[in-house]
Each structure stands twice: as C-alpha cells, then as structure tokens.
C-alpha cells in the first residue's frame, strides 16, 4: 500500500493546509458473508491542494467508489475521510448536502445540466440553491475562460456535447469550491472536445489554483494531471507524477500484463 506524498506545485493556499482532502484506512464493502464485495480495501490517500489528480484503474477497481466517498456522495464502511479539517465520514445527509453545495464542485460524464435551465442558470445553480449571490467579476472570468459568453441564454439541448461539459466545468468553478470532482468528464466527448475541456481544467488549476480530482480510464486525459493514482482491486497500487500519455499507457499495459500473469 502506497501512501501518496503531496507535492504542492502552486503556492497560494492561503493558510490552509496543503492537503485538500484525505482518506485514512477507508473500506467500502457491499453485501455480507459470502457475497461480500470489497470495493475499497483500506485506502489511504491525500489529495494535494491546488493540484490536478487523476484516478485510474480498470473497471471494478474501485476508482469511482473512491471518488464518490471523497466527494461525500457515498458513505464508507470504515475509515475516515477529511475535507480540509472537516471529517465528512459520519456526517448526516443534511450536513453532507451543505458541504457538497458549498465546498465541492462536480462534473459528471453525462447529464450534467438541468434541461429546464439555461446555461447561465445552470452555472449559478449551486449558489442559487445556497441562497448566495455569485461574485459577478469571478463569474465573468469563469464564463470567459470556458468561452461560453455567447451561449449563456441557451438551454442544454441547444448546446453541443462539448459545450455542455464546458458549462458543467463553469458551474463547478463558479462557486469557487475547495475541490472539484470529475467522474470521467470527457468520457462522452470526441477527442477534440475532450481536449478542450481538459485544457480548461488544467488552466483552472494553473491559473486559478483550483484543486481537481478526476476519475478516468483515458491515458490522454490522465496526462493532463499533475499526478496519477492507480487503483486495482480496491487498493492504490501505484502513482505517477507529471505523467505523459505514453507513460500512463505503458504503466497500464504493465498492470494489465501483471494482472494476467499473476
């Protein structure tokens, strides 16, 4: 079991700790007795603030489960998860919801936007729900960064898949969450649109100091990250810093062959 080491590449953490989220001995199991399936097996992980972290692994490795647990969407069987100084394991639904609303941003693979709201309304939705006024200057900056200024009044059905994901990115950024979780955010996009979205994520880390955790199985997507964590059978088996697509691919092939031979 590897304990990931945090290497902050950017300053500006503003007195906060360098670790945005951390998991300790996290176990997630489904069922009981013979049908018991362990999705996460005593995982320890630190997510560095201001970094872009990718979580990779084959299907069923537990990567999505890990992300869901870190994001407060799922509960753990045992272990602790902290978001900054807040322990989120054991929080009641109400507190968890508030936490997701105020401190976390999400980008899902598909179905990120409410069809009844236009792009701008979708972007400001988390703040609207919280009853907060969005910071106008920041909002303008985010919208310009993702290049949606012209399309703010459009409904999701009037946007392309890439545009929809960019709206989702803008929504995640607009509320200035401590951490953004992406669940295969480019999984449904062609490579060009995917690249566009990933560059935005990269830029938000570089220019805005945003912390991002992304689950993906695409080596190219992972290459945008500062750090890649590899999961297999519910454990973190490896990590890679400043990866390139080729390196990632090689490493995965490596796991594959090891998996087959072992």
């Amino acid at each position, binding site marked *: 079991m590897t304990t990931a080491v945090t290497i902050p590449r950017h300053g500006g953490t503003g007195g906060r700790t360098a670790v945005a989220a951390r998991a300790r001995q996290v176990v997630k199991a489904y069922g009981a007795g013979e049908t018991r399936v362990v999705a996460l097996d005593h995982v320890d992980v630190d997510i560095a603030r201001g970094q872009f972290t990718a979580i990779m692994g084959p299907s069923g490795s537990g990567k999505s489960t890990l992300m*869901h647990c870190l994001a407060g969407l799922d509960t753990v069987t045992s272990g602790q998860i902290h978001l900054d100084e807040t322990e989120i394991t054991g929080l009641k639904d109400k507190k968890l919801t508030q936490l997701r609303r105020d401190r976390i941003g999400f980008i899902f693979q*598909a179905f990120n936007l*409410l069809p009844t709201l236009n792009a701008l309304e979708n972007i400001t939705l988390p703040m609207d729900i*919280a009853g907060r006024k969005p910071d106008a200057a920041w909002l303008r900056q985010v919208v310009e960064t993702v290049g949606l200024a012209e399309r703010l009044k459009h409904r999701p059905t009037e946007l392309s898949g890439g545009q929809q994901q960019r709206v989702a990115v803008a929504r995640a950024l607009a509320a200035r969450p401590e951490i953004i979780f992406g669940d295969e955010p480019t999984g449904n996009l062609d490579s060009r649109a995917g690249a566009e979205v990933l560059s935005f994520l990269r830029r938000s880390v570089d220019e805005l100091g945003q912390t991002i955790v992304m689950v993906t199985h695409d080596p190219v997507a992972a290459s945008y990250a500062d750090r890649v964590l590899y999961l297999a059978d519910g454990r973190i088996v490896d990590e890679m810093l400043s990866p390139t697509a080729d390196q990632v691919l090689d490493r995965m092939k490596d796991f594959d062959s090891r998996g087959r031979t072992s």
Partner: protein
Amino acid sequence: MTVWKTSRRNFFAHKGRMALSAVAVLLSVAFVCGTLVFTDTMNTTFDKLFAATSADVTVSPRSPEDNDRLPGNGKPVTLPASAVEQVGKATGVKDAEGAVNSMSVTVVDSHNKNMGSTTGAPTIAGNWTKNELRSMEITSGHAPRGPTEVMVDADTADKHDLKIGDELRTIAATGDINAKISGIATFKVTNPGAAIVYFDTVTAQTKLLGRPDVFSLISVTAESGVTDAQLKRNVATALGDTSAYKLQTQKEAADANKDSMGSFLDVMKYAMLGFAGIAFLVGIFLIVNTFSMLVAQRTREIGLMRAIGSSRKQVNRSVLIEALFLGIVGSVLGVGAGVGLAVGLMKLMGAMGMDLSTKDLTVAWTTPVVGLALGIVVTVVAAYIPARRAGKISPMAALRDAGTPADGRAGRVRAAIGLVLTLAGGAALLAATRADKSSEGSLFLGVGVVLTLIGFIVIGPLLAGFVVRVLSALMLRMFGPVGRLAERNALRNPRRTGATGAALMIGLALVACLSVVGSSMVASATEELDKSVGADFIVEPAGGNPTLLVDQAVKSLESVPDIEHLTGYKVVGAGLTAPDGTTENKALAAVDPTYQEDVRRETVAGKLADAYDKDAMSVGDTYATKHHLKVGDRLTVAFKGGETAKLRLAAITSDDVNIDKGAMYINIATAAQYVPADSLPENMMMFAKAEDGKEKEAYAALKDALVKYPQYEVKNQADFKQQLKDQIGQLLNIVYGLLALAIIVAVLGVVNTLALSVVERTREIGLMRAIGLSRRQLRRMIRLESVVIAVFGALLGLGLGMGWGTAAQKLLALEGLGVLEIPWPTILTVFVASAFVGLFAALVPAFRAGRMNVLNAIATD
C-alpha cells in the same frame, strides 16, 4: 404471441406506475356498479314488499284523482261495506275482507314526538286483517281490541323504543285516537321505513274513515286453483256496475305501487350514473397521462423493438394490450368494490332511518358486465392516443442518447381548434344569457358549457404555459431558486400539466357553477320574500311531508292570542273552462282575503281585493294571455267533488314571480259555497300576522299551539329564509359529495403525474442532490410544482364554472332567478383548498424523491 408476452411483462414490471390509473378505473367502475346494485336492491326490496302486502285481488274505490292530476283533498275515499258482501259471494272467492287504510295520519308518542319516518316513507293507519298476515306476524302482545288498543310495527317500535302499554296518539283528519299499544307486529319482508299502526276494524272505520259502514278497499283471496285474473273477472261480475271501483290483481297492484316508487329510483340511479360518468371522464385524463409518460420513458426500448423489426402496429398493439390489462384489473376490482359500496350505501341509508336488508342484495348479471365493459373500453380508448404515439417512434430513438424527449410545444393547430371551440362556446353562453325563451336558452347553455369545456381542455397546455408563468410571478418567486425550478418543471411539458390540471378543472367547474346558481337562488328568493311577503309567520307541514293541516291543529292555531289575522290556504281542484271553450284541470288557491296582505301580488289588470268577492276569482297573466281574458269575463269552474259555478274574473296577477307563480285565487268562502264540507280540502298551509309589537309573543304562542302536532311547524320570516338556504345548501352538499369522486380521481391524477415525473427525472434529481440541493429543498420543489398544477386546474375550473353559473343565472332570470350572487367565500375556499390538495398530492412523490439514492440516480451505468 410475443406482443402479448412483452406487454404482459411490461405491465407487471411497471405495475407500480399503473397503480394509480388502476385505482381511477376501480373508483369509477365501483361507482357505476355500486349505483346499479343499490338501486336494484331497492327495487327488489319494494317488489317483495308490494308483492307480500297485496291481496290476490284488491278492490278499491275509483277516486277522481285517478283520472286527473289534481291534488287530493285529504279526505278518505271509501266504498260501502255492502260491497264486501257482494264480492264475498263471487265464485272462486275464498275470503273477502274490508280493509281500512289511511296515509293521511300522524302518530305521536306521549311526548308528542312524531313516530313517522324521516326519509319520506309514509305513516299508515289501518285495521288488522287476515290479509296483513301475508307479510306480517304478531311477535308480541295481541291484535288490537276495542277503541283504546293499537298495534304497531316492530321497526317503528324498535326505533322509538316503544313497549306494550305505551300510549300512542294517532292524529287523523277526523280527530285524534288515543290508544295503548296492545301488540307488536313484525314484517316478514324488509320494510324500508313506513310506520304502521293497526286498530280493530270498527275503531279504524269510525275514527279513520268517519263512518262505521265503509271501507278503504277490499282484499280478496282466491280459492285454490283460481287464478288472480279469473278471480278479478268473477269479482267484477259479482259487483255488477264497476264504474265506481278499481280492480287490481296482485301483480297489477304491485306494479302500480312500483311505478310510483320506480320513477324516484330511476331519477336517483341516473343522477348517480351521471356523476360516475364525470369520474370516468376525469379518469381518462389520468390514463392518457400515464400511458404518455410510460411511452416517453420507454422511447429507447420501443426504438430498439422497432430497430429489430417490430412493426408500428405491433408496438401500437403492445401498448393497447397493456391498457387492456389495466382495464381488466381495475374493472374486476371495481366491480367488487361496487358491491361493497352498495352495502355501505345501504348501511348509510339505515343510519338515516331507511331500513334495507343485505338479504335483498341484488347483483344482476348485467352489473358486472356493464362495469367490466365500461372500465375496459374507457381504458383502452384512453390509451389509444399514447399508443399511436408509441407506434410513431422511429427506430433511431434506440440510438439516440436523449433521456426523455421533450413533448414539444403545443401545436398551432391545437391552439386554433381550442380557441375556436372556446370562442364558439363563449358565444353560445352569451346567447343563452340573451335568450327570450328558456327552452332555446337552455339549448344554448348546454352547447356553450360543452364547447367551452372541450375548448379549455384543448387549449389547456397553452393556458398552462400562461397561467403557470403568472402564478410563478405571484407566488413561486418568493421561494427563490426552488420556486423557479418548480416553475420550469411545471412548464416543461405543458401538455402533461394541461391534462392534469384539466382533470381537476372539470370537477371544480361543476362545483363553481352549481354554487353560483345555488347562492343566486337563495339571493333571488330572499329578495322576493323581502319584497312580497307581509305575513310574519307561515305554518307548514314539517320536513316537507305533504300532509294537510288537520282541523284539530287549525282550531288550536285559531285560539292563539296576539294574532291580527290567520289566513288559510287550500288547494282546490277544478275543471276550468275559459270563454274560448277550452277546459283545463287547474288547482285553485282558495284563501282567506287576508292573504293579499300576507303575499303581495302585482296585478296587471283589476284589483286583487275584488277577486275575493263572492263568485269572483283571479288568474295569472300567462293563463289570461293564452285565453285572451280580460277583467269581467266569466269562467266556468267545475269544482272537484262539488258543483259547477260561473265565476267573474276580477283581477289578473303578474306571473313575474317565484312565489305562487300562475296561482288563481278565490275566496275560501266561494269554494265552500260550491264544495260540500266533507269534500273541501283541509288547509295546505296557513299564514299569520301578529298584532303590532306582539311578534315575539305570537311566535311563541303559535309554537305552543303546535306542540301536540309535530307534523307541522311554524316559521317566522327569518326561519323561513334560513330553511330555504339550508335546503339549497343541503342539496348542493349532496351534489358536491357526489362530485368528490371526480375530484378524488383528479387528485389521484396529480399524484400520478408527479410520481411518474419523479421517476422520469431520477437522474436530474440525483444531479441536483449531488450539487447540493437539500432533501427539504427537493421536497419543496415537488410540492410547489404540485401546488402550481392544482391551482392552475382550480383557476381554470372556477373561472369556467363561474362563467357557466352566471350564464345559467341570466337564463334562469326568465324563471324568476333575478339576482346573481357569486358565493365568494365558497369560491375562495375551493381555491385555497386546491392549493392544499396540491400539497397533499405531492406528499408521497416528494417523500420518495427525497429518499432517492443519489448515487443510483447519477450512476452512468
């Protein structure tokens, strides 16, 4: 066969989503079957009762009432005792008994409490004969002997806790009979409510008929082997001249009795079936919505079926087969529930004093057939449009990643059709308000109501868009982003919102319309009472029983002090011949001259006071115009049971009224001149005016005077108005109660739409929860959407209903309904209540949405 299989699997896979539709079918079918079973059971009960109580052949006197439609005079109609002997000598007669039978009696206990039925069933007094043993048996004590003994039926005894030895006073037109209970007789069949007392024959003759040598009818029993028809012929031969008699076999007598009962039952049956029809109509919306949503949710699946080779027809049929399953399940349960409902209704009637026995429960074979056929046909027909839409789904839908396709904007064609219908309906309603004749006006009204209703249903989706936006601006905005989400959700599928709201609209439109007409009736009547009634008090039979005032009660009233005048009001039948030679049977109002102060009438010619002169009368202007009468003309009046007189027309009254519309007045003295005292009817009601400043004392004294006669009551003007209001209120409440079924189905529709929408929006809800929408906010969002739909339906319904009601009032103004009164408290209550109904409807869907697992909802499979 595969179509069947997939349909069946689909049906059972989605049974939860079908549940509310099934309940809607169930309720409507149950109401239809319940009504049929209940009315059939009532019919059976009366059939058995009448069959059991009638003799093989009954001989009764032929009374004038049998020929014309004039009211009786309240005096007993008799045949001579000698006729019994004559009949007894006829061949084939085993037994002929003279029977005494009077329905114009009231029986009270020692506390002057009326022993009669409260449900309109008669009180009957008679003599105890062998014929009664067909349907009754003495279960305690003995048959009455002598003038101070009376026997009572067991149901009445039970209801009023009467025991042998208790004192009963029977109030008859010929005087009071005080007697102690000597025995109790029990019906062998179900007696739905008539109170019956028996005396011995002599007492019954002298006290009920006034003479010892007469009877009311003859009960004839046949010797064995003689048919009733044969017996009837023999009896006719024995009587010789039968012009004074009416002969009926058992079957004829039972049928005649049933006819008078049957028309009442039919009215009730068709009224209730009408309300069941409304519930069905509302249920159609629910079913259409359900299948539309199921088809929409299954778009990809259906696309796949099409892609792998299902034909349009097969897809179409598979949806219809599911509807068939739904119809069958709902109807079968509905038929069962209907029988239960009928039993419940019988129990309810029992609680109100009408005894019905479940032993007589009648489920005709037609009942389940009608119930099943209706339920299944309505369901399948309602599912036809969604089924057709399913057939049109292209195979490409399987490949598209669209979640739920938007329903699309309501079409322009639809808008145009709806608008045209609504405008045409509005024009018809307007025409109804301007109509001169009520017959053509009511045609316009009917057409207008139907067209505006259909028009509103058709443009419902458009109106939904507009109304929801307005509502949202008024009430949702204050709920912030949650309100906005609710607004968008209500707007996203206008057709669905429109149909859900329209279902609620139908019931509420009827409620609003009837409440407008009802309160206008009260307002109009009150206004007229204020304008024209000068009497302080009116004495009438209590509880609407058509009993005439017996002499004893009149005497008691006459002795009341502080009364300026007391006016008698009799209805006297007469054949009236106008100078143009036409003869009509008319009911004349024979009143004391003081009546012109009690009820002020406008005259169009002559002076009403003159009509009370000797040999004078008045008529209404409708009759006068029809027969070209003028003051001074002479009318030939053939008094029923009396002589024919020539009366001078002294006044013509205006018929533009509700009270005494078309009445023809004569002085009681004039009537008494031509009608012998024993044929002159008793007072139907009386009016009284107190001396100035003595109103209170007079009112109390009048009440005192009637303590011994609980079948009558005295009312002052305030009481009278209140009673009028109560009566209309009661009638409206019954109608509202019956409409409640349609409204319940509509509310189920709101629940259904929300529940299915929640399922449909699973991923959306998951997304919102993931990005921080709290459970409370989510539930509030769904509740607000529900409230908006309900309030939308209420607005449409109330608006439409008030329009209908106003048009109806303007039309009925021709019939004297001159005052329009919109019952704002009722309207507002319904409006506010509909918002609460919305909250209530959202209860379960909101709870389920809140419980939804966020992860499952967003899982990207």
